[in-house]
């Protein structure tokens, strides 16, 4: 099967604007494939270039070397088949929650009435039915994340890129959001307006970036461990064979989860320590 997302030999080297000889290689020779409908998490110590990888997949950043293929097609410019959920605030503060969700549809030329209808359906689905007329600053952090989720999913992308989307949330809200995400993902996000039907076929491919191993295991089909930067590369890959549907809170106490956690942490720990030492030296 053609992978939904195929990163092949990606290397990203940043050059300092002030001093051309100052270089920093964030990721080196990363090869990563995500199958259609597959949920893949990438974990790694902070500052290991996880977000760089995601930006490459989104088409926001050109890699120094390597190629990106999306459903077999080489990627040029913005990845039109992907939705991106950012780590920091990405909602347009001058638009209400509803207008933020309709934005993508508007940009794509969907008539306003139709866009509003779909956006309202999605807001209801993420539990913000009555909050459409609020501006982002009037919403709580969790509500803003939900709006961002609706904003991304209303476009029915085939690939969802998520950059530590829940890292700013408190633990309880975070688990709620993770469960919601799994539910939406398992349900085939497009099904709400009848455009798509069927089970796994309409599932979206997800590339999920996190530094939280628990979160990665609880959500994913596969976890990829990235080494500490600079020049991060994948150093381990684990298939998560926990049965679905999962509840992210409950799955954490199952023996299989603990085994997987131990195995992955064994690989990750050294990298975390390495990354920590490097940051300490730099500071």
């Amino acid at each position, binding site marked *: 099967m053609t992978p939904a997302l195929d990163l092949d030999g990606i290397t990203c080297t940043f050059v300092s604007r002030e001093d051309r000889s100052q270089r920093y290689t964030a990721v080196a020779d990363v090869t990563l494939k995500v199958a259609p409908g597959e949920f893949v998490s990438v974990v790694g110590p902070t500052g290991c270039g996880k977000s760089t990888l995601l930006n490459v997949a989104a088409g926001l950043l050109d890699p120094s070397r390597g190629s990106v293929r999306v459903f077999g097609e080489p990627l040029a410019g913005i990845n039109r088949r992907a939705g991106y959920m*950012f780590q920091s605030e990405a909602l*347009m503060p*001058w638009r209400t929650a509803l207008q933020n969700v309709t934005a993508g549809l508007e940009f794509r030329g969907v008539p306003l009435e139709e866009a509003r209808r779909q956006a309202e359906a999605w807001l209801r689905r993420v539990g913000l039915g009555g909050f459409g007329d609020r501006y982002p*600053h009037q919403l709580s952090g969790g509500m803003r994340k939900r709006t961002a989720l609706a904003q991304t999913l209303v476009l029915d992308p085939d690939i969802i890129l998520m950059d530590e989307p829940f890292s700013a949330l408190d633990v309880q809200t975070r688990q709620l959001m993770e469960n919601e995400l799994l539910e939406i993902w398992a349900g085939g996000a497009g099904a709400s307006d009848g455009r798509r039907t069927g089970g796994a076929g309409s599932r979206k491919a997800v590339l999920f970036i996190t530094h939280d191993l628990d979160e990665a295991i609880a959500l994913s089909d596969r976890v990829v461990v990235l080494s500490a930067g600079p020049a991060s590369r994948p150093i381990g890959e684990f298939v998560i064979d926990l049965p679905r549907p999962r509840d992210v809170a409950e799955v954490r106490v199952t023996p299989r989860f603990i085994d997987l956690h131990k195995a992955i942490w064994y690989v990750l720990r050294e990298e975390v320590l390495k990354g920590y030492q490097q940051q300490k030296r730099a500071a």
Partner: protein
Amino acid sequence: MWQWLRPSPRTLRFWQLGVLVAFFLFWHVMTAPGLVPHFLFAKENDAAFFLGEPVKIFSRIWQWFVVKRDIYPHLWITLVETVLAFAIGTAAGLLTGMWLALSPMAAAILDPYIKAFNSMPRIILAPIFAVWFGLGIASKVALGFTLVFFIVFFNVYQGVKEVSPTVLANARMLGAGQRQLLRHVYLPSAMSWVFSSLHTSVGLAFVGAVVGEYLGSAKGVGYLIHQAEMVFDINTVMAGILVLTAFALVLDWAVGLVERRLMKWQPRSGETEKL
């Protein structure tokens, strides 16, 4: 009694008005000939001659607005000049700011010239504009324009530069093209900067209009003040200044009104309601 009048948010307006009344009372007492023995000036009438008398100033204003009704054409001219300078200056500043912020090369080339024009004392241009554009409205609009343009320009430039990169990337991922980014991201983001500059620039548009009139014209409030000054009619000069001040306050309030309508998405502190 004092319980009721103690300065508090409730009696704020009362106290503000009180300051104004006290100011004019003090002015009146110090200048009315013969009321208080003169101690600063050589002659009894000198204080009134140099500083004007509030009673005469207000009767002058009354004459202008109610009895003779001859100030309206002048006020109208000044208003037209101000609004034109403000509108044209803001639009030009907005467009140029957008353009230069989005094309760094053009900005780099024009940078020294913009700095030079901005640091030039532009009031000096008034006589030149009078020569170029005549003594009518155009020369005052031109002067106001040069004052307004740079303020708005710098703010838009800064506003566009400071667009959150995440919001920008998000809009691009949502499928926004260049024009849509301009319309839906850069422009709204710059607007908060623009509005903070509009309060300053509406005042400057007014300055441009009045100074232009003062230096050479046949109509407008600045012209009235100039005429009165020629015959040492200090009361009329002061009346003109008062009218201009009130006028500027109204313009500023109008800008604030538009701002509150358009910027309602901005967080304000203390937006809770006591139940």
